[in-house]
C-alpha cells in the first residue's frame, strides 16, 4: 500500500474533478438503491417460491393427485400449501420464542394469527385435493409393508429398518473417529515446526475429503469393504465365516454387499462433516477454562475429558445429528455398494441384504409406471418428516444445552 505518500497535505488545493466523469444525482442514486432492493426481494421470494412449489408438488403426488401443467387448481393448491407451510414456520418460531424467551403479548398475537392461517391453509389444501385424488398413497400400511408389484400395496418397511441399521453402523464408527480427530487437531496442537506442518496437511486433507463426491466414496467402499481388494476370496465364497447367514449373528470376510459395508462407506462420507463441526465446537470453548484446568495440574487429556469436551458437547451433538441426517439422505454411495433393486425383508444381520429409504425412492422414481411416482412421493414425505425431526432435535439441543461460557 503506497497510499501514505499520496495523501495531499492540507494546504494543497482540492484535486480537480475530471470533466468527463458524470456524477449521478442524489435522487438517481436513491432510485438505484430502491431498484436493487426490489431485485433482491424478487430473487429471494423466487427462491422461496421454487422451494415451496417443490414441497407442494411432492405432497400433492403423495396424496395421489397427478401433475397437470397449466391448471388453475395447480396454482391454487400451491399457494394454499405455501400459506400452510409459512404459517407453520411462523408458528414454530413464535412458539419457541414463547417457550424460551420473554412472554410478550405481540408473540401471543403472532401465534394466534399463524394458527388461524394454518387451519385455513390446511382446509384449503384438503378441499382442493379431495376432488381429484385417485388414491391416497400415504397410508399406515405404507410404513409396514414391503415393495409390491401393485403400486397401491407397496410400502417401505424394509427400507426404513435398513436405514436404521445402516445409520447405526455409520454413527457408531463415524462419531468416535470424527470427534477423536477433531480433539487431536484442536487440543493437541504440536509446538514443533515439522509436526505443525503435518497437522496443517491433515487439516487441508479433511477440507479436500469434504469436497469429494459421495459416489467416489461409493466406488471406494465397493473395492475396500465389499470385495476387500480381493484379499479374502470372492463375495460368494468368503474366506472367513462366523455364524450362519440366516441367524442374527453373522460375520464374514469380505463383507459383501451388506449393511456393514454400506455403513462404513457412509462413515467415510460424513466423517469430514463431523470433524469440521466438532472442531468448531471445541474452538468455541474459551481458553481461560483450559488454562484454569492446566494450572491446577491436570494433564492435557484430563483437561479435554473433564473441561473442554463437556463444554463443547452441545455443538458436537448438533454437528453429529446433522451429519446423520445427511447420512440418511445419501443414496449414491449406497447404490454403488448395495446394487439391489427391491427386497422383501429387512436385514437379518450385519452382513444381510438391505435397502435404504432414498434408494427405495430412487428405484420407485425410475419405474416406468406412473403410479410408482406417487409411491415415491409418499416415500419422500416419510423421509423428509424424519429429516425434519432430526433437525428439530438438533435445534432443540443447541437451544437447550448451550451455556454462556465466557
Amino acid at each position, binding site marked *: 500500500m503506497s497510499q501514505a505518500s499520496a495523501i495531499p497535505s492540507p494546504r494543497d488545493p482540492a484535486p480537480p474533478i475530471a470533466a468527463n466523469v458524470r456524477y449521478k444525482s442524489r435522487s438517481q442514486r*436513491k432510485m438505484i*438503491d430502491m431498484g*436493487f*432492493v426490489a431485485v*433482491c426481494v424478487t*430473487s*429471494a421470494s423466487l*427462491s422461496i417460491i421454487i*422451494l415451496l412449489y*417443490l414441497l407442494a*408438488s*411432492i405432497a400433492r*403426488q403423495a396424496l395421489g393427485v397427478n*401433475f397437470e*401443467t397449466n391448471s388453475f387448481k395447480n396454482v391454487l393448491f400451491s399457494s394454499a400449501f405455501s400459506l400452510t407451510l409459512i404459517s407453520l*414456520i411462523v408458528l414454530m418460531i413464535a412458539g419457541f420464542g414463547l417457550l424460551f424467551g420473554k412472554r410478550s403479548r405481540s408473540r401471543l398475537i403472532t401465534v394466534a394469527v399463524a394458527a388461524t392461517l394454518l387451519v385455513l391453509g390446511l382446509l384449503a389444501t384438503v378441499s382442493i385435493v379431495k376432488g381429484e385424488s385417485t388414491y391416497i398413497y400415504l397410508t399406515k400400511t405404507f410404513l409396514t409393508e414391503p415393495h409390491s408389484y401393485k403400486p397401491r400395496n407397496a410400502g417401505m418397511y424394509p427400507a426404513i429398518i435398513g436405514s436404521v441399521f445402516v445409520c447405526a453402523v455409520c454413527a457408531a464408527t463415524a462419531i*468416535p*473417529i470424527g470427534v*477423536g480427530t477433531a*480433539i*487431536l487437531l484442536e487440543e493437541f496442537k504440536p509446538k514443533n515446526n515439522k509436526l505443525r506442518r503435518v497437522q496443517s496437511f*491433515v487439516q*487441508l*486433507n479433511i*477440507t*479436500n*475429503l469434504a*469436497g*469429494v*463426491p*459421495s*459416489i*467416489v466414496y461409493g*466406488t*471406494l467402499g465397493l*473395492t475396500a469393504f465389499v470385495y476387500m481388494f480381493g484379499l479374502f476370496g470372492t463375495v460368494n465364497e468368503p474366506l472367513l465365516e462366523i455364524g450362519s447367514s440366516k441367524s442374527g449373528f453373522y460375520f464374514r470376510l469380505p463383507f459383501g454387499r451388506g449393511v456393514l459395508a454400506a455403513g462404513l462407506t457412509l462413515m467415510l462420507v460424513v466423517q469430514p462433516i463431523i*470433524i469440521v463441526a466438532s472442531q468448531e465446537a471445541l474452538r468455541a470453548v474459551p481458553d481461560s477454562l483450559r488454562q484454569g484446568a492446566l494450572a491446577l495440574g491436570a*494433564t492435557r*487429556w484430563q483437561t479435554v475429558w473433564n473441561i473442554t469436551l463437556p463444554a463443547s458437547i452441545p455443538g458436537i451433538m448438533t454437528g453429529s445429528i446433522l451429519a446423520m441426517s*445427511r447420512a440418511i*439422505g445419501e*443414496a*449414491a454411495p449406497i*447404490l*454403488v455398494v448395495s*446394487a439391489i433393486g427391491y427386497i422383501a425383508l429387512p436385514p437379518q444381520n450385519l452382513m444381510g441384504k438391505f435397502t435404504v429409504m*432414498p434408494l427405495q*425412492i*430412487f428405484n420407485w*422414481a*425410475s419405474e416406468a409406471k406412473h403410479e410408482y*411416482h406417487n409411491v*415415491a*412421493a409418499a416415500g*419422500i414425505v416419510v*423421509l*423428509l418428516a424424519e*429429516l425434519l425431526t432430526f*433437525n428439530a432435535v438438533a*435445534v432443540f439441543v443447541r437451544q437447550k444445552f448451550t451455556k454462556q461460557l465466557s
Partner: protein
Amino acid sequence: MSQSPLGLPSLPPIGLNRSSGLRRARETVVIGTLICCGLFSLLTTVTIIVVLTKETASFFGRDEVTVLDFITGTEWNPLLGNEKHFGIWPLICGTMLITVIAMGLALPLGLITAIWLSEYAHPTLRAVVKPVLEVLAGIPTVVFGFFALTVITPNLKWLHEGFGVYNAMSAGLAVGIMTLPIVTSLTEDALRAVPKSLREASYGVGATRFETSIKVVVPAALSGIVAAFLLAIARAVGETMIVALAAGSTAQLTINPQDSVQPMTGFIVQMVKGDVSNFDIEYYSLYAVAATLFIMTFLLTVVGHKIRVRFRQEYQ
C-alpha cells in the same frame, strides 16, 4: 487415617491412579489413539488414490483402450455394439452442460439473496432465514431428482415441444435449486465476516446502501465468495441422483439443453445398476470415470482453498 502432629486430618494418600507414571502412560495411550483417528483421514485419501489409480491402470492395460483414446475420444459407448469406444469427452460435456445450467441459476440468485440477507434484511428475519437455509441444504438430492423428473420436465415440455423425457435443462435446473441454499448460506457468511467499520466508513462518506454493498462489502469478501462458488460448482459436478433420474443415459457431445445427456456420475450409476460382470472392461471403465471425477473436484477444492488463503484480507 493417621493424625498429623498438628491434630488435623492428613490428606488422603495419593492413590495408584494418581501416580504420575500411570497418568503419563494413560496420556500416551490416549494421544496414540487420537493420532490413529487423525491418520485415518489421511488413510482414506491414500486409499481413494490407490484404488482409483490401480483400477484405472488395469483399465488402460486392456487392448481395447488406450490413454490417448480415453483423453481425446469423442465417442462413448461401452455397452452397445461390437465396437466399443471409450472417449471421455461426451461424459465431461454432459457434466459441464449441467453444471453451467445449474450455476447460471444458483450463483446470481444466491449472491443477490445473500447480499440482501446480509446488508438489507432485518436481523430477526435473518435469524429465521439462516436455519431454514441449513435445513434446505440438508434435503436429500434424490428428492430434487424426483422433482426434476415429475415436475420440471412436464413444465418444460409444456413450454416447448422440443424437450425430451430426459433432458439436460431439467436436471441442470434441479441441481441449481439444490445448490441454491448452499451458495446463499456460504456467501452470506463471507459477507458477514466483513467488519462493520468498513460499512460505517462508506456510509460516512455518503454512500447509499447499494453502493456500500457493491463497491465495499462484496469486493472485501470476494475471496470468500469465490470459494463458496467453487464449492457449489464442485457439488454440482459430483451430483449423482438428480442426473441419474432426470438427465437420461445417452452419452453425446452436445450443448443443446433439450437433449438427453449423460454426465460422469450418471454413467457410474448406470454401470452399477446393470448386471455388469465384475472384471470386464466396462467394470474397470467405471473406475476410470470415477478417477476423472475425483481429479476434477479435487482441483476445484484445491483452487478454492488457495484462493481463500491467498486473497484473504485480514481486518482487525
